[in-house]
């Protein structure tokens, strides 16, 4: 048989694992962009920041990167809430979020990247953990643990978020603020406070995503740029604000990227997400599960 069947199966499985990781990367954008209508293009910068924190703490204390990610959740939550406060006072309140708000996030993206370059240089950094390296084998299928663990944990994080948004008071308020901010204030809930919490959660997911990223691959400051196209492609393709749609789109993009990388070479992979984004915007801007 000429067709490399085993290669294809392995590429698909690797793609599903990659897609699982993309869920963790995108879920924050799905909340910020999809629900709160805040075009946070600096999200990948926060992810890289999370990666570097995982690297620093792992290198100096030998702490597991996933554990670092968990410890950083409250820190990133506060950071996110603070960023939202600045954003709200400077742009949303004045009705200038379209032009200047975007420039603000672009500036943050840029400052983070350059600051990291100035402090750490452009060398690739990596973490050490017992599960980086070994892989599980079933027949001809390889399951590297460095991919499997982020994928499983990302799915766990997604499930927890979905439960939180659907079952708790604040979670439901976040879903409500996405639909009608005015109505929420009529129900005696402060929409700004709810949005602050939601944006904090969105940035907190970046702490975990950053830890996953540095487990999967070595990281340097400008890696984040590649993820901008990716996260927005997934978010738009999934349908704005639809978390289940995000999961489907993330897995889809992961599989297509993995197949592209296997059969045409990894240097083509970044073009895939952009193709997805443009096609979605041109033919179905509402996304797969959008209304």
């Amino acid at each position, binding site marked *: 048989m000429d067709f490399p069947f085993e290669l294809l199966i392995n590429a698909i499985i690797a793609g599903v694992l990659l897609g699982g990781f993309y869920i963790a990367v995108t879920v924050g954008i799905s909340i910020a*962009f999809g629900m709160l209508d805040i*075009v946070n*293009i600096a999200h990948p910068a926060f992810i890289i920041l999370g990666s570097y924190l995982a690297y620093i703490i792992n290198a100096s204390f030998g702490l597991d990167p996933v554990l670092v990610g968990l410890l950083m959740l409250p820190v990133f939550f506060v950071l996110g809430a603070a960023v939202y406060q*600045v954003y709200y006072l*400077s*742009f949303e309140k*004045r009705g*200038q979020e*379209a*032009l*200047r*708000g*975007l*420039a*603000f996030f*672009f*500036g*943050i993206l*840029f*400052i983070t*990247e*350059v*600051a990291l*370059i*100035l402090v750490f240089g452009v060398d690739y950094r990596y973490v050490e953990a017992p599960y980086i390296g070994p892989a599980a084998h079933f027949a001809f299928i390889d399951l590297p643990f460095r991919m499997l663990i982020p994928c499983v944990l990302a799915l766990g994080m997604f499930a927890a978020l979905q439960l939180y948004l659907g079952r708790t008071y604040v979670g439901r308020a976040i879903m409500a603020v996405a639909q009608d901010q005015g109505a929420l204030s009529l129900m005696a809930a402060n929409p700004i406070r709810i949005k602050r919490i939601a944006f904090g959660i969105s940035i907190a997911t970046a702490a975990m995503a950053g830890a996953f990223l540095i487990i999967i691959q070595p990281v340097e400051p*400008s890696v984040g*740029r*590649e993820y*901008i*196209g990716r996260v*927005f*492609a997934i978010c*738009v393709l999934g349908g704005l604000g639809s978390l289940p749609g995000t999961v489907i789109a993330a897995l889809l993009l992961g599989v297509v990227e993995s197949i592209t990388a296997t059969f045409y070479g990894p*240097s*083509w992979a*970044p*073009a895939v*997400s*952009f*193709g997805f*984004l*443009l096609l979605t*915007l*041109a033919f179905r*801007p509402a996304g797969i599960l959008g209304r």
Partner: protein
Amino acid sequence: MQSRTFILLTLLVAAACFAAAQLVSNNYVFFAGYTVLQFIVLATAWNILGGYCGYVNFGSAAFFALGAYSTVFFYKAFPMPIPALIVIGGLVSGIVGFGMGYLTLRLRGSFFAIATLALAVVLQTLIVNWDYVGGSRGAYIIRPNTIAFAGREIPYIEYLFLLMLTLAALAIIAARTIERSRLGFGFATIRDDELAAEASGVPTLRLKLIATTISGALMGMAGAPFPYYIGYLQPQSAFALDYAVNSIAMPMIGGTASWIGPLIGAILLGTIQQVATVTISSAVNVLIVGVLLVLFVIIAPNGLVGLVQDLMRRGRP
């Protein structure tokens, strides 16, 4: 001021710049001046879409690089004088700008911004994989030392400087003309309230496409002579994030409402960066630009021009 007077004045200022640069015997003035002029074109071009229409383009580097790489392509395939290459670079970038706009401008504004951001990454991927124009290794452009111009031999860098100076003058004249024409008023209605403009019969999509095309074309024209300037073009230098950041930061810091804002911003930031690159380091100077951008959008939303206008209003009760 009459348009004709303005055009004449702009050209006079440009000629004076060139004459003044001639007085300094050091060629460095031309190298540094070229960069500043290039930023004037980029900032003015960005402002035609960003400042007049209110649509953010994060892909300035992509349009710039398109112009630069079309030059590399024709340098290898079919050598031509630089002015012809500038026109071609403008055409290529203008067409790409039109295509991007056609696909994304019918949607909410932020989609266009995101698409331009992704465009830079993808074009870079394409160029890296395209061996004919050098791929990831980069391409060499052999620049002659001198060129015959107006009957005498002048150093090539002076020629490039002169070209960029002309381009900068053209960009400013174009921006001011647009600002005061029907087109400019149409752009302003889009920026202020697109829904209301659409309801009043302003052909918003067509106007936005015109703005994207002009803006993209000017950026491509700014990029076309770049390979000759730098001599060795590689994807990282053509797609450098500096271009994207600077072409947003300069109008934002100068003021986006009229043509003078990007001009002031570009001269100011461009000069600061030239000085900082020499005296401190190039990484620090881009950090300065980022910090200034964030500070200005928060504290002075109308840029330096807005600050001055506020002061003048306060001085006159």
